[in-house]
C-alpha cells in the first residue's frame, strides 16, 4: 500500500491534484470562518449555481472564453448576497436559497432547450461534484490556483483585523468609522473568485463542505477568532491532503472523499469540544 502511494506521488498529475486541492482548501477555509459566522454558510453552494447558470448562458452563446461572462456574474451575485447583511427584509439565507435555486433551474432549462453537449444531466452532475476528476488538472490550473491563493492569503492577512471587527459587530465597526461595506465587498469578490476557479476542478459540493466544516469544527474547540481561523485552515488543508491520498488508494471519487474526511474531522472535534466543556464544569 505504502509503495503504491510512493509510486503514485511520482506522477505530476497526482502532485498537481494535491497542490490544487490543498490551495483551494486553504482559501475556502479562511473565508469560511467569516461566512459561517455571518450566517452565509451556503453562499458557496448558491454562487456555484449562479456560475453554472452563467456557464450555460455562455455555452449557448458559444463564447470561447466563458470566464468573461461567468466571473462578473458570480461576483455580482456575491456582492448582492453579502449586501443583504443584518438590516434588510430578505434575510441572508433566504436570499441565497432564492438565487441558488433560480440560477440552477434557469441554467438547466437553457441547457435543455439549446443542448450544446449531448449529456445534459452529466453536466449538471459535474457542477455538483467537479467536472473533471481532480487528477486531470493541468499545470496551467495549478498556476492560476497558486496566484489566486497568494492574493487571497495576502488580502486576508492584511485585512484580518478589519474582517474580525466587521464580522463581530458590523454596527459598532461602522459607527467608529470602519468601512464595513467596503470589506463586505472585498469578501464577496474573494469568495466569488474562489468559487469560479474551484468549481470546475472540485465541484460545488466540495467547496461548500470546505467552507463550512473546518470552520464549524474549529469553533467546537477554540474560543478565539485567531485560533479558530488558524485551526480551520490547518484542518481544511489536512483533510484535503488525506482525502486526495485516500481517494487514490481506495479509488473513490476525490471530492466526496475529501468531504467525508471533513465530516469525520467535524465529529472528532465535536467530541473534543464536549470533553473540554466537561472538564471546565
Amino acid at each position, binding site marked *: 500500500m505504502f509503495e503504491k502511494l510512493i509510486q503514485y506521488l511520482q506522477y505530476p498529475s497526482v502532485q498537481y491534484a494535491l497542490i490544487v486541492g490543498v490551495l483551494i482548501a486553504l482559501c475556502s477555509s479562511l473565508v469560511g470562518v467569516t461566512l459561517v459566522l455571518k450566517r452565509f454558510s451556503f453562499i458557496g453552494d448558491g454562487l456555484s449555481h449562479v456560475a453554472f447558470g452563467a456557464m450555460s448562458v455562455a455555452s449557448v452563446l458559444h463564447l470561447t472564453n466563458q470566464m468573461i461572462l461567468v466571473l462578473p456574474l458570480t461576483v455580482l451575485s456575491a456582492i448582492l448576497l453579502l449586501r443583504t447583511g443584518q438590516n434588510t427584509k430578505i434575510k441572508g439565507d433566504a436570499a441565497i436559497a432564492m438565487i441558488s435555486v433560480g440560477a440552477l433551474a434557469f441554467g438547466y432549462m437553457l441547457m435543455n432547450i439549446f443542448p450544446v453537449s449531448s449529456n445534459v444531466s452529466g453536466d449538471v452532475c459535474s457542477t455538483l461534484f467537479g467536472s473533471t476528476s481532480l487528477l486531470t488538472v493541468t499545470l496551467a490550473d495549478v498556476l492560476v490556483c497558486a496566484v489566486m491563493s497568494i492574493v487571497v492569503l495576502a488580502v486576508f492577512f492584511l485585512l484580518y*483585523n478589519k474582517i*474580525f*471587527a466587521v464580522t463581530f459587530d458590523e*454596527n459598532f465597526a461602522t459607527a467608529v*468609522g470602519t468601512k464595513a461595506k467596503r470589506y463586505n465587498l472585498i469578501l464577496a469578490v474573494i469568495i466569488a473568485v474562489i468559487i469560479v476557479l474551484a468549481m470546475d476542478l472540485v465541484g460545488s459540493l466540495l467547496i461548500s463542505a470546505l467552507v463550512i466544516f473546518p470552520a464549524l469544527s474549529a469553533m467546537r474547540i477554540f474560543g478565539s*477568532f485567531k*485560533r479558530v481561523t488558524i485551526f480551520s485552515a490547518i484542518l481544511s488543508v489536512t483533510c484535503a491532503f488525506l482525502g486526495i491520498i485516500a481517494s487514490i488508494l481506495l479509488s473513490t471519487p476525490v471530492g466526496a472523499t475529501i468531504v467525508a474526511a471533513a465530516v469525520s474531522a467535524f465529529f472528532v472535534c465535536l467530541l473534543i469540544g464536549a470533553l473540554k466543556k466537561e472538564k471546565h464544569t
Partner: protein
Amino acid sequence: MSLLSVQNLVLGYDNHIIIQDLNFTVNAGDYLCIVGENGSGKSTLVRTLLRLHKPMEGNICLGDDLKPTEIGYLPQQTVVQKDFPASVREIVLSGCQARCGRRPFYNRQEKQLARQNMERMDILDLAHRCYRELSGGQQQRVLLARALCATQKLLLLDEPVSGLDPKVTAEMYDLIRDLNRDGITIIMISHDISAAIQYASHILHISKKIFFGTTEEYLKSDTGKLFVAIESGDSIV
C-alpha cells in the same frame, strides 16, 4: 458650545414616521437617560446619532472637538454575538479601529489602551477567555471596555442592563456612574425609570409627547408624575 445638539429631528423607516420634532442638547459631563416604551424609537435615535441610520429631516450637530468616530457605543446584543468565537482581548482591541485607521495591525499604544480599559472594567483576568462563555454582566463589561477604547468623551449605551440580574444591574449602574464622574458624557437608553431618575442628570422621554429636561424638571412634569405614580404603584403590588 454643547457636545451634541439635535434640532427638529424626524426619524422613521420607509416614510413611516416614528419620532418627530425632536430637540435636545447634551453638554460635556451630562448623564442623559432616554426612556420610553418598547418600539418608541429609542434605539433608532441612538443609531441615528451614530450615523448608522439617516434622519428623515433635521440636524445633529457635534461639538467642535468631537469627531463622529469618537463616540463609544454599546449596542443591544445581536444574534451573531451569541455563539461567536472571540476572546475578550480580541473584542476589546477592536474598539481601537478608529485610531488604527487604514493600518492593518494594532500598534503598541492601542494594545496598551485595550489593556488599561480591561483593567478599568476589572476584566483583565478574563482577557483570554472566550466571550460566549462569560456571564451576561461580564459580557457587558467587555463591550463597555471596547466602547471606552473608542472614546474618552461620549458613550452611547443601548439598554446596558437588559437581561442582567438585580445585583449585577446595580453594579453596572455604579460602573457607568463612575465613568460619568471621571468626565465621560453618558447617553443611556433604559426602560427602568426609577434608575433613570436616580442616576441621570437629564431625561429624554420619548412618547407621543416628548419631554426633555433635567431630572428635577422631569419629576415635576406631567409625564414624569404619571410614570412615577405607575412605577411606585407597581412596586407596592
